[in-house]
Structures are given as C-alpha cells and as structure tokens.
C-alpha cells in the first residue's frame, strides 16, 4: 500500500504478479498497521505532560484566567487515566471519535518530510502561525479557554518526550527536560475549534458551569461516535486507498486538496495507467541507463504476451529508445489525464516540465523550451531528476509548433545517422507526453501518426462515487451514495466538476439528497448537444414526466418553460446559422396543420429577421445583436413543434446550391474572358446571362440538314458561317467528350446549356452529332483563319513574323534590289551597267549569292564552295 521508492519500481515491474498479490495483502495489513499505530501513540506520559504544556502555553496569560482551564484539565486527565487502564482502544475512540484523522495527518507528515525538503519551510511557517495563535489567545482570554479545551482533546499526540515523527518545536522545561510540541497549522486549529464550537454552544459556556457543558458535550460526542462508527465501517468496506492530504485548507480547491498523491490512488482506468507507466519504463534504458538491453527486451516480450494488446507493440529502436517517442493522451475533460501524466512521470522518477495553453507556444519559445528540457537537467533540484515534458492542451497549440515537435522527434534522429555519433546531444532522450481533449483536431493529424495514442475511457461512476463518498466523509457532508451517483451522472463523470459541486454543497451545510441534486441547476455542464439533438428539441415538444401529474401547469407556464428550454439549448449550442439552416430546410417537411399559412408567414418573417441580423453582425462585427437571433428559435418551436418524433435531414441543400452557383459563375467568367474585346465592350456578365446567352443558345442551334457540308446550299452555308462567327465572338465551341455510357458526344465548352436552361421549360433543339462535329471543325478553322488574317493585318505595318516551322523558302526576286543598288566607282561616279544580262542569269537559278561590296585589305581569290567545309 505504501509508496514504492524509485529503485524498486523495476523490481515491481519484473515481478508484477507476485507483487500484485503481495500488494493486496499489504493493503489490508497496512490498514491494520495504521490502526495499531493510532492506538499506540497516545500514552499516559503525554497526557500528563499535557498540563505542563498548558502551563507553558498560558504562562504569560493572566493568572486568574488560567484557573478555569486547569479545572477542566484535571478532570479530563483523571477521566482518561481511569479509563486508560481498561481497554485503551475503546477509550480513545469513544472519547475522540474521529481521531484517526489527525493520525493520518501525522503519517502524511512523515512521508512528506522524507520526500520533500520544503517541508522544513512549512514547519517553520506553521510554527509562526502557532505563535501567532498564542498571542491571539493572550489577547482574547475567552478564546484561550476554548483553545485549551481543544488542546485538551489532542494533547496526547501533540506532546512527547521523545523526538516525535511529526513536525515539532522543542521546549525546555524548568527542570531541564525537553518537550516536543507538535505544530499545527492555524487553519487546522480553527477548523477544530469551529467543530467544538458547534458541539457546545458558546453562550451556554458563559452561563453554566463547565460540568454541565461537558455533560452536554459528551452526549453529543456519543452521538457523533455512532456516526463515526458507521463511517469507519464504510471505510473498511470500501478499503480504498486513504487520502493522505487531510489538512483542511479553505483556500485550497478541493480538486487540489484531494488530488491523488500516489500512483495507486489514481481514479482513471487501471489499464490506461499501466500502459502509460510501461511506456515510461521503456525510457529507463536511455534515461537512467539502468538495465541491460537484452533483459528489457525479454521483459517487453513478456508484456506483449501477457497483455496481448495490438496497439501496445513497443520496441526499442537502435538507440535504446522506445519506438514511439511521444505518447498522446486524449479524452474528455475531467478524466484526470493531466493528473495521471504528472503522477506517472513522478512515479517513474522524472522531473515534470509542463507546457500548457497558458504558456507562449510560438515555435521559437517552444523550441527553446524543448531543447532546454530535453538536453539539460535541473541544477537546483537536489535529486537531479531527468526532465519529462508534458504538453498539456496540445490541441490548441499552433500547427507550426506541432510540426516542429514532430520534426524534433523524427528529424534529429536522421541527422544523427548522417553525422555518426558526434551530435549525441541533439537526440531526443526524454519522454514527451502530449495531452489533448480532441484527438481529431487537424493540427494533430501528423502527430497522431507518430505518437502512441492512449485513449482515456470514461471513469466508472461507481469508482468516482466511492471517492466522492470518501471526500464527503472527510468534509462532513451528509450525502448518500445514490445522490453521489446522480451527481456523477449529471456531470458526466467529470471528477473536477463533481468536486467543485461538492465544495458548493458544503457551503449549504445541510444534507444533500438525490432530489436536491436533480433539482438544482447548478453544476449542469454547459454541454453541447449535438446538432440533431438541438433540432429535435426545437421540432418536438417534450412533456416532462413529473410535472404532468404533480400540477396542472397553466398554458402560459408550459409555454414559458418551453421557451426557456429552447433558449438554453440553443444558446448552449451557439452555431445559430447552422441551426437556422437546418430548421429552414426541414420545417416544410413537418406535418403542419396550418392551412391558412399564417404560421408559415410568421416563421418566414423570423427567418428574414435572423438573416438580416446575422448579416448585420458579420458586416459590422456587432455581436451584441446575436442575442436577438435566438428568439427566432422559440417562435419556430412554438410554430412547428409536434409531440411526435419526425425525421430531420441534415441541411445540405444550401451548401449544394452555393457550390452549384459558384460553378455557374465560373462558367460565365470563362465565357466573358474569352469573348472578343469588341463584343465584350458592350456587354457584361449580367446582360450576358439574362439576355444574350439564352437567345444565343437558340440562334446557334438552327435546323440543319444532317448532310455533308458540300451538299449545303449557299444559304445554309451562310448560316453556318454566321453561327461559327457568333460562337467565336462569344468564345464557344463544341468539344468531344465521352459520355458515361461510353459513346462520344459533343458538348458546348463552356457549357452555355448549363447556364441558360431550366428544368421543364424551354426545350431547345439539340443538334445532331454530325452537325456539332461540323460546327466544331468550322470553328477551329475559322479561328485559324482569324489568326492568319490578323497576321496579314499586322504585316502591313510590321514585318511578317512567321514561326520557324511555318517558314518556307521563297524565291527572292533580285530585280528591285538591283535596280536600287547603284554601283559607284572609286571616285563616287555612278557606273552605268547593262544589268539585263546579269538579270537573266540570276533569274535562271534558284539560289543566288551576293557579296557585300566594300573595302577590304584581305587578298581576294576565287574559292569553290566544295573546298570550304
């Protein structure tokens, strides 16, 4: 039952079976041990020394006032001494009822001390608080009386002659003997005082003699003892691990107060816990260098055979690291994921470094943090534990950060392989735990693949209720198991919210019943119902079972109730737009009895209203208006809700329409882009769509005879040309496509038919395949001609630029050139030549070469073309 030291954990894993057995035995033994311990500690010497203690305490107080407390003290002491000879066990239990609380506390102190050095500080603080308390008592003697009474009760385990195990303060008595006084926190004392205050009224104490008060107190104590007995019995039945943290601290949240302190106290599913622990253990090789590899592998094999979980295939890679470097815990809030991660990491001997949504998670900061914590270890920490990083709430982290994490885990490994073992430091050698609520956030997609995903099953209600019962007992809350189960159910087995609720109930200071839990609307989680559930709520009237019989609610009252319910549901869901769309697309399918259509009109008005408001919200970012949208749902509920269940379809029509409309816009844009500029200049998208294209579609589908183009009359040819040029103007053509049935068809591209045609009206003539083919060919030809024509147009102004592959060699007539060229002699006189003879020669041959004439120093000589090469 006790905590296992780190060194023993390996051992624990090795001999798990045996340990399990031992543990159960120990568990029961441990409990007994505790009881024994309880009984042994208080003994007479302490009781006797009690008086001394009191004296010391009150030494400086007014002498006269001490007399009264002393009186009680002696009485008390005598009582204990008389009974003490008999059955010691009973005495204490009877007298002090729930005393083992204190003893538990003591125990926890021991452990804490062993574990944590900081406890010294705490002890000091507590000491200071104690002194402050005394000072207070001096100031207010009446309170001192009370505190004596209180001390009285606890004296036996608060004073000792030997060095005690709890935190203490030493005092030397006048005779030189050392006394050890236990230190309590102020808060603890206050609580206890309050308890006693409750037991005996303070006012009574003033008026009556103390004997009477004491008698009264005893009666009360007896009563309490009965209750305590019951509780004890329950405690035995449950045999749950005790809660170590028993200091009652009002400032602390219960969630923290009753946080599991040890691995065994974890509430979450045991198999999940074990898996995570095992994963941590796999890191031991590289982190602690604790175990030879071979042995560990054998160990793993054992695990696999034993657990036989397909997902749990953990192997070590070549560097002795687990195959999965990251573990990803996911589950809904309040299951104890963070607690488990912390607990297990601590248990496995790591120092936890937590990064959560409250930290800066930009890539740079993250990188620094990651490197710091994986490659260094804390110097300040005495234990020098290796770090373990826990990324809490990773589903909210930016994608770049997650990508970096993945790169860090994978990338560095590859880098190392390249550069051999030089970059030892950059390899990830520390376990990383990621925690998320929603596993399927897009950012986590890649992380999911490389991480070992552990899904958290919901906590069992019974287990949770047991723990709550335990806490309730400790906090003096009167609550029965049924109510607790109801509570668990209400919060959806969320430990955190259960505890917060209990904390709230404590403040009520009255017994909590099942009906109370059901009635209060506190603690209802702001749970998002599913889309369909919300729609169902709107379209269906749900009569509550109880209220039907209990009281005949008036019409207004039920309406009010329905309205409130709808408002609440809708508000919780939040996505009004999708809800509205769903209602809009479904309301006509309801079996509505609204022959006058008045209701429909009203509903439509509200649809319009919400649309206008939503538009206003989005354009002006005025989200205050969103409040008004939700009232529409109430109206629609009143109008459309029926008692019977009716099928609701997901509103997909709106989306389909949107996509189709976008497609149409795209088509039209395609046409507009391709149109001839001088046509485009006179029209734009809207007139095109409304006037031109529908009629154009008619114009370009005349009744042609399906014969060869050569058989067409001139008139038909003209018409064909007209169509072709019109189609070119508007950038239309027919393209061949394969129909789903396999044959080829010609379709318009861009498909004007899609733009202009509506179902069931205006059936247009469809041209036969051959005509379409003909037109398509003509369009292509015409386009070519157009290009050529534009070229010839251009050639008038510029030189003709024909692409190389279209160039042909042409015979260049030399005639004009020769005529232009005027040969001059050295002195610039024009030489008149009879060029006719030359011309004749030139024109005879296909090729003709001409040398540029000019002055040249080079020697001229005749050369044959064949000798060139």
């Amino acid at each position: 039952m006790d905590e296992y030291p780190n060194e023993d954990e390996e051992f624990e894993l090795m001999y798990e079976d045996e340990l399990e057995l031992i543990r159960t035995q120990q568990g029961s033994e441990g409990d007994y041990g505790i009881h024994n311990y309880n009984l042994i500690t208080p003994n007479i010497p302490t009781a006797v020394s009690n008086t001394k203690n009191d004296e010391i305490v009150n030494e400086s107080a007014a002498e006269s006032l001490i007399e009264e407390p002393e009186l009680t003290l002696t009485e008390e002491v005598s009582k204990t001494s008389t009974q003490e000879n008999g059955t010691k066990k009973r005495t204490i239990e009877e007298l002090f009822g729930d005393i083992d609380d204190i003893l538990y506390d003591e125990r926890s102190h021991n452990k804490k001390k062993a574990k944590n050095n900081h406890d010294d500080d705490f002890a000091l603080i507590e000491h200071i608080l104690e002194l402050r308390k005394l000072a207070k008592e001096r100031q207010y003697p009446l309170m001192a009386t009370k505190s004596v009474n209180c001390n009285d009760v606890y004296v036996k385990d608060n004073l000792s002659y030997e060095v005690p195990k709890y935190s203490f303060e030493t005092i030397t008595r006048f005779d030189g003997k050392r006394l050890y006084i236990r230190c309590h926190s102020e808060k603890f004392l206050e609580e206890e005082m309050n308890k006693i205050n409750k037991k005996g009224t303070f006012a009574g104490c003033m008026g009556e003699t103390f004997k009477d008060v004491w008698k009264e107190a005893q009666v009360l104590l007896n009563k309490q003892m009965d209750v305590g007995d019951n509780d004890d019995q329950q405690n035995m039945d449950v045999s749950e691990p005790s809660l170590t943290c028993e200091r009652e601290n009002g400032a602390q949240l219960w969630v923290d107060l009753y946080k599991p302190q040890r691995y065994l106290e974890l509430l979450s599913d045991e198999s999940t816990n074990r898996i995570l622990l095992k994963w941590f253990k796999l890191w031991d090789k590289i982190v602690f260098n604790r175990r030879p590899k071979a042995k560990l592998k054998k160990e793993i094999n054992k695990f696999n055979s034993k657990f036989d979980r397909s997902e749990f295939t953990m192997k070590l890679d070549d560097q002795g690291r687990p195959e999965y470097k990251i573990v990803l815990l996911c589950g809904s809030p309040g299951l104890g994921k963070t607690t488990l991660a912390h607990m297990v990491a601590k248990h496995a001997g790591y120092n936890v470094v937590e990064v959560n949504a409250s930290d800066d998670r930009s890539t740079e900061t993250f990188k620094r943090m990651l490197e710091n914590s994986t490659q260094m270890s804390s110097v300040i920490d005495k234990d020098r534990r290796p770090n373990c990083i826990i990324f809490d709430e990773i589903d909210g982290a930016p994608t770049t950060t997650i990508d970096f994490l993945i790169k860090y885990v994978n990338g560095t490994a590859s880098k190392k392989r390249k550069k051999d073992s030089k970059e030892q430091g950059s390899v990830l050698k520390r376990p990383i735990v990621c925690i998320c609520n929603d596993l399927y956030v897009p950012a986590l997609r890649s992380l999911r693949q490389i991480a070992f995903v552990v899904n958290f099953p919901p906590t069992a209600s019974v287990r949770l209720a047991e723990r709550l019962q335990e806490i309730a007992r400790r906090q003096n809350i009167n609550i029965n198991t049924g109510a607790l189960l109801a509570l668990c159910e209400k919060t959806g087995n969320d430990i955190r919210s259960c505890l917060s609720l209990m904390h709230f109930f404590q403040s009520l200071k009255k017994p909590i019943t099942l009906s109370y839990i059901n009635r209060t609307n506190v603690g209802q989680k702001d749970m998002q119902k599913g889309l369909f559930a919300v729609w169902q709520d709107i379209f269906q009237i749900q009569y509550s079972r109880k209220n039907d019989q209990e009281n005949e609610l008036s019409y207004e009252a039920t309406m009010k109730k329905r309205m409130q319910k709808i408002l609440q549901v809708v508000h919780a869901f939040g996505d009004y737009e999708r809800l509205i769309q769903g209602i809009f697309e479904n309301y006509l399918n309801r079996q509505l009895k609204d022959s006058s259509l008045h209701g429909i009109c009203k509903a439509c008005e509200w649809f319009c209203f919400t649309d206008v408001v939503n538009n206003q919200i989005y354009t002006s970012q005025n989200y205050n208006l969103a409040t008004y949208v939700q009232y529409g749902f109430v109206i629609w509920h009143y109008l459309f809700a029926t008692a019977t269940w009716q099928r609701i379809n997901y509103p997909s029509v709106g989306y389909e329409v949107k996509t189709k409309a976008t497609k149409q816009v795209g088509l039209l844009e395609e046409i507009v882009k391709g149109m001839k500029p001088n046509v485009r200049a006179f029209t734009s998208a809207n007139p095109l769509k409304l006037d031109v294209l529908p009629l154009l579609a008619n114009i370009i589908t005349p009744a042609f005879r399906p014969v060869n183009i050569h058989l067409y009359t001139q008139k038909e040819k003209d018409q064909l040309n007209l169509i072709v040029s019109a189609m070119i103007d508007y950038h239309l053509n027919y393209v061949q496509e394969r129909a789903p049935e396999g044959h080829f068809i010609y379709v318009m591209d861009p498909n004007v038919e899609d733009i202009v045609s509506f179902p069931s009206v205006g059936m247009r003539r469809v041209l036969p395949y051959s005509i379409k083919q003909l037109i398509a060919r003509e369009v292509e030809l015409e386009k070519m001609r157009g290009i050529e024509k534009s070229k010839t147009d251009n050639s008038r102004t510029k030189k003709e630029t024909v692409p190389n592959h279209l160039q042909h060699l042409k015979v260049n007539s030399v005639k004009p050139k020769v005529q232009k060229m005027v040969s001059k002699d050295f002195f610039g006189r024009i030489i008149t030549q009879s060029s006719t003879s030359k011309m004749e020669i030139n024109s005879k041959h296909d090729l003709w070469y001409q040398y540029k004439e000019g002055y040249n120093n080079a020697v001229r000589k005749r050369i044959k073309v064949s000798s060139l090469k």
Partner: protein
Amino acid sequence: MSLWVDKYRPKDLSKLDYHKDQAENLKKLTQRGDFPHLLVYGPSGAGKKTRIMCILKDLYGPGVERLRMEQLNFTTPSKKKLEIMTVSSNYHIEINPSDVGIYDRVVVMDLIKNVAQTQQLDVNGQREFKVIVLTDVDDLSKDAQHALRRTMEKYIANCRLILSANSTSRLTPAIRSRCLGIRVSAPTITEIVTILQGVCKREGLNLPTELAQRIAEKSNRNLRRAILMCEACKVEQYPFSANQNIAEPDWLLFIRAIARKISQEQSINTLASVRGDLYELIIHGIPNTIIFQTLVSELVKNCDITLKATIISQAALFEHRLQHGNKAIFHLEAFVAKYMYLYKKFLEDTIGDAF
C-alpha cells in the same frame, strides 16, 4: 461581330436611332475641350454602353475601337490576390469593380490612381485626359463609393470618369453631384419596331410589322433582347409569319411557371416545390431583384385590384429586407408564403361574401 446586336450597333453619335436630341448634346459636349465626369444611367438594353463608346469615339477617333482585354492584378491589404478583367484601348480603360465583390474599393483606389497619376505624354493631337469607364457602379460598395469621390476631383486634370449604372438610387449623393447625369431611357415600342425593321432590311429580310410589334412588346423594351429575339425568330423560321413563336429567355419562362404554380394552389407542399424552383434560379445566378420583379409582375397579373397594392407593398418590403440580408432564399420564400397567405385569405373572404 456576326450577331445582329453587335453587327448593327451604331458606332457614331450621329448614327444613333433614338434619343437624337441627347446625342446632339453629347456631340456638342465632346467637341468642346472641357468634358465633365459622366454618369450614364438607364435600364438594361437601353443603349448606355453604345452611347459611351460613341462618346469615346467622338473624343479620340477610331483608335478607340482597337480594343484589347487585359487582366489586372491587385493585392488587398490583407494580401489577397485579385484579378480583374479590363477592356481597354489606348485612350480609355473599362472596368467593372463589382467583379471582385467586397474588394471593389481596392480596385477603385489602385486603378484610378494609377491611371490618373500618369499624364498623357503626347499632348498634341490628343485630349489631355484619359477616360475610365466604370460599369455597374450601382453595385459598388459604400466604401468604394467613398474612395471614389475624392479621387474624382483630385485627378480631374488627367482623367475623366464615365460611370454606367442602372439606377442612381444606390449611388451616394456625393458621387451623383460630381457627375453630369445622362439618362438613357429604354426605347419605346415604336422605336424598337423601327429599329428591328431597319435591321432586317439591312439583312435583306422582310419583317412583318405585327411580328416586330410582338417582339418589341415581349422584349420588355430591352433593345438588346429585342434584336436577339428577332434573330432567334429568323433562325427558327424564315420567311417570318406574323404569329410565329417568339423565343424568350428560359429564366423568364421559368419564373412564369413558378408564378403559375403559386397561383394555382396555396399549400405547404406548393411552397416546398417552389423553394426548389427558387433555388434553381439562385443557382443560375439570376439577380434577386430581377427574380422579385418578374415574379411580382407575373403574380399580380391574376390578382384582384384590391389585392394588388398589398402584394406590391409586401414585395417591396421583402426585397428591401433582402438588400440588407444575405440569404436570398429566405426572403424569396417569405414573400411567396406571404402571397399565398394573402391570396388565400382574399379568396376565402370573397367566397364568404358571395354567400
């Protein structure tokens, strides 16, 4: 340029078929050196663009007709890349800022500043200003309109704006006051008839007056539609006959069918099927105002006179709401439901009165 609409479009102010006085004035305007910003407005198919191009031609000569299409790129402050098609010549640029939706302000600011800040290099022989033609300015967002108004004054030395809109009602008064408004009203039926006959004559066809009259009436005084209808008729059947079938745009027929459906039966089932039809219209991108207008005019046809006023006021109300809203289908359906309710109530009342 083979469709009749394109082929027989007048290219010169002096050749315009109707609004001749206006054309005269415009000609005078262009001949003087000073030239204000223009706001040309009028219904679709009345000839706004034709007049704008005529004005430009008058200003700069036939060079304006050498048009080219260019794609301009803009970047919004939020680093969103925008593309917009422009039609331009050496002297002018035409742009439809509402093509880029809510980012029209960026286009207006960037484009106009760019164009306006560069001065015409070759001053002699040309005008010292360039022209920016903005179309569909009534779809401009308020932001864009505000961005426009100062620019208009600041760069008046270098550029002139010609705005084209269907109605001035959605333009801010600031813009309206900075422009010379030119209203191009739709041609009358007789004008359309003469134009149609002129076109057919030039095509060498014989168009019976009855048919021309019918086409003109069906075209809703939209000249573009009328000429296209006429050509469609020719493709359908030639020689023309006076009572031949005139092809109309499908969406018009479709809305008519919807109106018929609504008038026939007023029930939730009808409403459900009408919703599907309305969705179909929205998919095809028919502007909401057009849907409303056509639907109302069709519905009102078979209404009692007492009911007409209510229906029209209701339609106005719902259309107004639609302008403020986002989801057209809500408003359209709301109007249809309202009509059904009113119509049914009216019928029941009259039947009740009869007994």
